[in-house]
């Protein structure tokens, strides 16, 4: 059986449930299949989530912990790209013919089957498809192809138009490829669903501290979900018309989204707790990587994002490390205690501090010393410094309404109907199983 995978970035289970009466095609697939909550990997972010789901390896095994890594034993970061993934996707491991559109990290294009790169792609002047000629066919078919939209913006109406334009083009390109080239596994990744949440969560979600009901943006939210549902109907319909019941369909999301409740300047807090010191006063909003950190006095420092990566400045490992092997565990214990006692402006919150070894089956590559979720990923840690307080009113990288959550969705069809939740690293096996069904 061939397999059509619709990889919808960042669709939360609760939003699918709330809108399911309006999402006729997804509901129909759900009613004829196995479905449920898809628990994301740790951390619940796009890179490494899809790579884990389609290889069956957790982020520790893959040695991929986010869009960037700090090279262990240095204070230097580097970018994670498609080349950082050394494991095979399940369709590669099984030797199947594949067409993959937009799957992150997707640049440079992976040299297997047909590959269309993702939002990493700097511009269309670069090689963004494999084989190269596919790019011309896509442009010939849909016009200028769009990888992503600027979504951390206040220009919400303009953003919506771009969002729709990008999505419609991608699904048209996918349809062209699906009907023209041979495949056993077809993966279409849509980043637009995630961007929708980042743009409009506060107009839709009463949990958001700045929830504004009854605006046009609220209608955009449901309208965009209906658009995607319609595109799913068209694509699945076309596939089933041509290949009948020899097409299985998987709808997946890599993580959910939830309201952002606050922004936390984690390095300012580390400085206040005495873990981090500067040689000169940092400028307001300065990136920690640009700051003059006094490494000879610094025990801990952090990167922000959806989660915080906390690094111990360890003697014998980092160039100017000061925390000895004996002190290492004391510093970590002390840090955990202080995070537990952390009070947000709206009260105490529950945060989680993990060593990578506590989360993964193996720990490879450039892993951080600690992974921290503040308020169950509802508070965004930022790494910039130079603020008067460590609680900020807004994200330092532009307006953003949502943060990621662990509860995504999955639907596998056809399957004996029923709800059964699944863990992200079990997806690859489940999909291989689905393809082997008669």
């Amino acid at each position, binding site marked *: 059986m061939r397999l059509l995978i619709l990889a919808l970035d960042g669709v939360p289970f609760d939003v699918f449930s709330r809108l399911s009466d309006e999402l006729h095609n997804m509901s129909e697939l759900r009613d004829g299949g196995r479905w449920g909550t898809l628990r994301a990997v740790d951390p619940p972010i796009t890179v490494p989530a899809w790579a884990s789901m389609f290889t069956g390896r957790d982020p520790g095994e893959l040695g991929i912990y986010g*869009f960037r890594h700090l090279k262990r034993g240095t204070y230097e970061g580097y970018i994670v790209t498609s080349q*950082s993934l050394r494991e095979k996707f399940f369709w590669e491991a099984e030797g199947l013919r594949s067409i993959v559109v937009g799957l992150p990290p997707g640049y440079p294009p992976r040299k297997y089957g047909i590959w269309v790169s993702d939002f990493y792609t700097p511009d269309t002047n670069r090689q963004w498809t494999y084989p190269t000629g596919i790019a011309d066919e896509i442009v010939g078919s849909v016009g200028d192809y769009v990888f992503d939209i600027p979504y951390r913006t206040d220009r919400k109406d303009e953003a919506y138009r771009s969002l729709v334009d990008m999505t419609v083009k991608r699904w048209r390109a996918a349809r062209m490829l699906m009907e023209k080239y041979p495949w056993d596994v077809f993966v279409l990744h849509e980043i637009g669903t995630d961007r929708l949440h980042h743009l409009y969560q506060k107009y839709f979600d009463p949990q958001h501290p700045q929830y504004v009901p009854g605006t046009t943006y609220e209608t955009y939210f449901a309208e965009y979900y209906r658009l995607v549902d319609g595109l799913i109907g068209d694509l699945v319909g076309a596939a089933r018309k041509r290949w009948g019941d020899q097409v299985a369909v998987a709808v997946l999301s890599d993580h959910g989204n939830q309201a952002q409740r606050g922004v936390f300047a984690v390095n300012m807090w580390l400085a206040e707790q005495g873990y981090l010191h500067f040689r000169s006063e940092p400028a307001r909003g300065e990136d920690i990587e640009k700051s003059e950190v006094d490494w000879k006095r610094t025990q801990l420092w952090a990167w922000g994002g959806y989660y915080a990566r906390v690094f111990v400045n360890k003697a014998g490992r980092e160039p100017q490390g000061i925390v000895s092997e004996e002190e290492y565990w004391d510093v970590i214990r002390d840090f955990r205690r202080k995070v537990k006692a952390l009070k947000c402006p709206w009260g105490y919150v529950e945060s989680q501090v993990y060593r990578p070894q506590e989360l993964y089956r193996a720990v490879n590559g*450039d892993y951080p010393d600690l992974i921290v979720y503040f308020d169950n990923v509802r508070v965004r840690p930022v790494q910039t410094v130079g603020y008067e307080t460590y609680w900020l009113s807004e994200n330092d990288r532009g307006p953003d309404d949502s943060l990621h959550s662990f509860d995504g969705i999955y639907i596998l069809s056809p399957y004996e109907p029923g709800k059964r939740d699944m863990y992200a690293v079990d997806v690859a096996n489940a999909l291989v199983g689905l393809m082997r069904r008669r």
Partner: protein
Amino acid sequence: MEERKYTTVSIPITLYRRLESMIRGTGFRSVSEYVTYLLREIVAMKEGGEPTLSPEEIEEIKRRLRALGYL
């Protein structure tokens, strides 16, 4: 006493001969040198690490991810 820098690994003689013929006319001076090179490549691949894009391409990707708010 000086610390040893090398050790011995056994490989089948047939494989050794194939490797020997493969390095003829290359810059590798011995099978040991070639095997060390191959193993380093494989180990680097297994351990993950920095991608091999050009520095210019890396900068472009960084700019892109920064513009999207990821960095």
